[in-house]
């Protein structure tokens, strides 16, 4: 049996009420948080990488969630960044719905594709149950959101 130890969701990397309506602005706000936490350099440039990833195919599978992700030279340490938007963000999701939960997955360029996909799979699995998504959207404040997100991400 193998046990994967992933990054712990850091309190400063949880944004309980993201004010942005546009995907580009939302990504930049999240990357600035990651920069402030010492995980990412040059948020504007890192956003270009994440937008290139969106060109590869939208990172929202629908259901109000999105998983922007990339391996990048600009990432110093693998991390998750979680943001919640009560108003919703236009993301180009296949169901045309707005995104209310964004779980960003960042890996350094040295990470293997498999390791990065493992983190991505964990993020997607965590937000798959509709009940979990509802609980995250209704969680009280940053502390409540962080505690619940840590619980579901394992």
């Amino acid at each position: 049996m193998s046990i994967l130890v992933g990054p712990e969701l850091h309190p400063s990397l949880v944004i309980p009420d993201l004010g942005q309506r546009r995907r580009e602005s939302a990504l930049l706000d999240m990357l600035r948080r990651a920069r402030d936490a010492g995980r990412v350099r040059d948020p504007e440039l890192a956003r270009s990488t994440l937008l290139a990833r969106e060109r590869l195919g939208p990172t929202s599978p629908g259901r109000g969630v999105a998983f922007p992700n990339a391996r990048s030279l600009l990432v110093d340490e693998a991390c998750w960044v979680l943001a919640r938007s009560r108003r919703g963000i236009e993301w180009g999701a296949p169901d045309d719905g707005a995104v209310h939960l964004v779980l960003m997955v960042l890996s350094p360029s040295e990470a293997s594709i498999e390791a990065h996909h493992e983190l991505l799979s964990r993020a997607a699995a965590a937000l798959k149950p509709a009940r979990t998504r509802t609980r995250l959207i209704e969680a009280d404040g940053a502390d409540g959101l962080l505690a619940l997100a840590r619980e579901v991400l394992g």
Partner: protein
Amino acid sequence: MSTLERLAQLHDHDLLLEEARATGTPQRLKALGLSLSGVAAVERARHALAHGAERRWMMAYDRARARYGRGMVAVRERVCAGCYIKMPTSAVPAGDAPVLCESCARVLYWRPTT
């Protein structure tokens, strides 16, 4: 966009394309509800980045990429993330200008951390 930023973007586009072309990636992403419909668009963007880069730096990038699989690496804590050699004490991050690792000749992404 500075030469350093252009090369960093080129590198990240190469990583994206490597991921998209890797065996198993489409199936893995499909299981997550994600698709890879835009490979051609990323290839075009990669081409534009390469076309706009200074020739001497593109040659250095391509040479390192052919040898190591990656043309560019980050410097973290003054250590080249490619060959793990420590930068000389006299060396300083050059801002927007790329530099080559004196040991492995990869292009370095080395900016002062603030």
